[in-house]
């Protein structure tokens, strides 16, 4: 299997090159954000406030990491289920967010907005939190510290493993692959 190396920021040119089914290794900067942080980001947009990081060409990783043991950068850090962020995603895509990393299905509304705005959705292996944590080299809380595991963190990653599940044309690996192995409805 051919693996694509991609670096951040994730420009629209890079997004166009990514196709559903591509295995990728991501290096650079990504931001963590899950349920509570997304709500806060949307509230901030509604109030016209400045966001804790620039959405343009950014990647958000849906994760709430375990606490770091002494001497370590971060605890286990696998993806959380993405659909819970679906209702809170379109405004971020409109602001230029180009990549999301999580696990599980996305809504039609999100996929339509990904096609319109040129964004890609990656899946990381759910439950492989120890393995993924070893690709995270730096971690800094940059917003909403009171949310504990849900605080927004800026991560520096090297060769973070993921698969393109939904590309910017709307091709969806969850649908195409399941059909290949499906024997009953």
């Amino acid at each position, binding site marked *: 299997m051919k693996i694509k190396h991609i670096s951040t920021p994730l420009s629209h040119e890079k997004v166009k090159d990514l196709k559903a089914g591509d295995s990728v290794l991501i290096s650079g900067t990504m931001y963590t954000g899950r349920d509570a942080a997304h709500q806060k980001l949307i509230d901030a947009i509604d109030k016209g406030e400045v966001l804790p990081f620039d959405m343009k060409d950014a990647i958000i990783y849906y994760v709430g990491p375990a606490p770091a043991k002494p001497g370590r950068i971060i605890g286990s850090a696998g993806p959380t289920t993405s659909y819970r962020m679906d209702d809170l995603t379109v405004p971020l895509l409109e602001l230029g967010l180009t990549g999301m990393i999580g696990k599980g299905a996305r809504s039609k509304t999100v996929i339509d907005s990904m096609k319109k705005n040129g964004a890609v959705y990656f899946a990381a292996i759910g439950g492989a939190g120890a*393995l993924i944590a070893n690709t995270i080299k730096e971690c800094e809380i940059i917003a909403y510290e009171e949310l*504990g595991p849900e605080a927004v963190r800026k991560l520096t990653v090297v060769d973070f493993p993921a698969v393109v599940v939904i590309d910017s044309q709307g091709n969806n690996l969850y649908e195409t692959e399941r059909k290949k192995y499906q024997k009953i409805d």
Partner: protein
Amino acid sequence: MRKVDVKEIENAIRDMSIKTNIYVGEDVLNAFNKFQKEETSPVGKEIIANLIKNAEIAAEEQVPICQDTGMAVVFVEVGQEVQLIGGNITSAINEGVRRGYKEGYLRKSVVEDPLIRKNTGDNTPAVIYYDILPGDKVKITLAPKGFGSENMSRLKMLKPSDGLAGVLDFVVETVSIAGPNPCPPIVVGVGIGGTSDKATYLAKKALTRDIGSHNKAEHLRNIEITLLEKINALGIGPQGLGGNTTALAVNVEAFATHIAGLPVAVNINCHVARHEVTII
């Protein structure tokens, strides 16, 4: 009366919280190895290989297998010849969770009120079920539950005439709807009978059984086998990226029910399928 100090129960909960979050169970590892051989999707094979690798890293580095170290679900069976001393058992269990999650660097994933949503900061309170049984032992089962899978739970109050076919359809439909969300390959807990609450309790309790174990009742054992075949024919596969390993096991528990009812509950566990037992 045999005296049991609740401090022993607290210590057991503390130790099990850390152990079950760091070490993948023997039953799960055996299932990974078996299904990795049988999986026909190359991507699926690779994912299971990565799950095995992740288990090795977690054990080696003494870090949690998964960042979602769960809400602590505890089943306590107290022998009626036991006298609990040294304090309140519920407080002791919560203290064990508090210590285990702090000292084990496990994630604190519990909010105090479901609507106000402020993190309690120590992963308490636990969800605790008590049962009084004959004997002079205390059996404590800890099964920390992640919510990626928990959110895929469903309950249906079937009609008696829906019968076995209705039960099978509902369970398969539930797994099909869950698709890639609950971190497949999953373990499926099914509770049949009782009342609506009893059925969901049985579905959860079914998940504390080892993968590869079967219900002793022959008809329920057959349902487990049939359901596993049907679920693995859905094509969802590891992480939902296609394949024939959607579930590692289906565990079914049943209880008497009313002449008018046939409740069925499904509780899904992710592939970590944490469960640990201590008998005091």
